[in-house]
């Protein structure tokens, strides 16, 4: 959808020298994906982004957007077909929110009633009440609200491609996380092709389908976030990603990727004998007790019931915590530490027992790489 081929930019400096801001950059952003251009300041990521919509003239190379060579398009028309979001938001203070959102539709000569209706719909999409906000001026909005408007303004003419230059950089961390989540939710429906400049590794890992790491104008590595964290191509990338890059992968994996499913279980009315038998059979020291319809209710530990008799309901202990199968591993680990336990019961949204997860399994998953992520090996199941 966006394709760059040997794209270069050389800036002439006043002293007569020259600086290579982008050096033979080749990459492709597939349709519907978010590609984050990441790197330290001055690495050429912003220059590369701005060459795509012609805000910076390229020195050499080729750019295709939606299958068309941008050299063959009028830059003004090209820009109207690409959504653009900048760090400073850049809402026009002289226009109401409605007029700000409708800038590109108006430039394209769309029907005013149609574009104004769309402005209202877009505001609802980011949880801003159109009745309140359409007629307001930018200065009457908070930073976070302005940023949301900045994003939907870029979506107003429904462009297939979006360029975003540190779009959430100016917001405080709490609001930033909220807006990132909102944006990702929108993206699952809209499926735009997005090039997104960031200098924040955590943001990149959270937002990106693919990350492009730049250094001194050179594209150093272009990979999925997990591959990047698991296999940084060189020392620069490894140190840029940080010492804790392995921990960062925790937020990329969900509990259901790592848990052991189809676990044996007992019911309240079962005999302890049956529980002991099941545990010995699968070689685990714990077994989960479920309710009549399969919700996780509690558990038994083998050592506690070695010599006991009776029913499961007389001996079970409550679960200290459960974890949702769609939570990321980060919150699973956090819960384990908080409750000083090495395993957790995994449930779905309704609380039905789906499996369990262990510390060993998690560390094993992090040690492995994405492609051979078949982590449910026997060794990792030992702790159960």
């Amino acid at each position: 959808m966006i394709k760059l081929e040997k794209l270069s930019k050389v800036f002439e400096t006043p002293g007569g020298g020259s600086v290579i801001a982008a050096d033979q950059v080749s990459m492709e952003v597939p349709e519907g994906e978010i590609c984050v251009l990441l790197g330290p300041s001055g690495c050429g990521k912003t220059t590369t982004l701005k060459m795509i919509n012609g805000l910076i003239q390229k020195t050499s190379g080729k750019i295709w957007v939606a299958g068309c060579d941008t050299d063959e398009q009028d830059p003004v028309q090209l820009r109207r077909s690409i959504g653009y979001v900048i760090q400073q938001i850049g809402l026009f203070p002289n226009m109401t929110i409605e007029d700000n959102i409708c800038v590109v539709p108006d430039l394209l000569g769309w029907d005013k009633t149609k574009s104004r209706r769309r402005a209202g719909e877009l505001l609802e999409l980011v949880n801003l009440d159109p009745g309140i906000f359409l007629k307001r001026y930018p200065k009457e909005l908070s930073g976070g609200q302005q940023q949301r408007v900045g994003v939907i303004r870029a979506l107003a003419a429904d462009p297939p491609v979006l360029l975003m230059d540190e779009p959430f950089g100016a917001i405080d961390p709490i609001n930033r996380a909220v807006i990132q989540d909102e944006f990702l939710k929108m993206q699952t429906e809209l499926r735009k092709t997005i090039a997104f400049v960031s200098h924040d590794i955590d943001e990149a890992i959270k937002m990106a389908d693919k990350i492009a790491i730049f250094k001194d104008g050179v594209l150093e590595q272009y990979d999925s976030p997990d591959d990047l964290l698991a296999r940084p191509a060189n020392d620069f990338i490894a140190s840029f990603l940080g010492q804790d890059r392995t921990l960062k992968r925790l937020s990329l994996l969900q509990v259901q990727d790592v848990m052991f499913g189809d676990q044996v279980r007992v019911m309240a009315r079962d005999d302890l004998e049956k529980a002991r038998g099941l545990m010995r059979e699968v070689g685990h020291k714990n077994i989960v007790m479920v309710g009549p319809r399969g919700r996780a209710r509690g558990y038994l530990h083998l050592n506690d019931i070695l010599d006991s008799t009776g029913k499961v309901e007389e001996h079970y202990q409550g679960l200290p915590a459960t974890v949702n199968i769609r939570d990321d591993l980060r919150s699973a680990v956090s819960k384990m530490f908080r409750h000083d336990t090495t395993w957790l019961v995994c449930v779905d949204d309704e609380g039905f027992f789906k499996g369990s997860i262990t510390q060993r399994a998690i560390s094993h998953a992090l040690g492995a790489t994405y492609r051979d992520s078949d982590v449910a090996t026997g060794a990792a199941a030992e702790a159960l």
Partner: protein
Amino acid sequence: MKMQILPHQERFRSRIAFGLGAILGIGLMIGERGYIGDTWRLYSEDILFLTVQHIQLVLVSSGLAILVGVPVGIMLSRPRMQRYSEAVLQVFNIGTTIPTLALLALSITLLGIGFVPAVFGLWAATLLPIVRNVFQGLRSVPDYLKEAATGMGMTPLHILRSVELPNALFVIFAGIRTAVAVNVGTVPLAFLIGGGGLGELIFTGIDLNEMQMLMAGAIPVALLSIAADWILAKAQYWLIPRGVNPLRN
């Protein structure tokens, strides 16, 4: 001069202006035999005639200054002129330092005596602050707004019309307000170079040591100036859209 004027002060100013107007009106009506009433009887014809002339001078010279100053300011702010802009700004700073009486004097040496040199001198004194503020106002529009506009596919003309000028409007208007204040303050001097106006009563009154004639000129001049400033303050408040008007929130 960029004045930071708070809205409540704006209201206060209009109250003072109104109060002064009311005092004059009362003086005119009930002071049939008083000082003001007396002066009015003696000079009402002169005052009316010269007031019209006075207002004409203001309107013609400041109107022409706006008509020329705004386009010139826009031209100077274009990227093509960038490398001259510092020098231009220096020249304009020096230009606005030159006393208006000196400008009128230079106008005489160029054009002689009469309405045209008077208008020319006033025009020159009014022009500089307008050009300077248009230029500075347009330059102070943040680059990122222009970048956002370009990135969204606006042409340079579009950007000037829909982004730069609206966002510079407050500063531009402040310049016009300052310039008109300079103009109104200088118009009484136009009499000296044969341009007419209420200055005639003041200067002749001083020369002849004729106090009533002096007052017949000075009071209307003062009131006209205050009224002009009041009108412009109101216009600045109401004409500039809420989004870019720091006086309105």
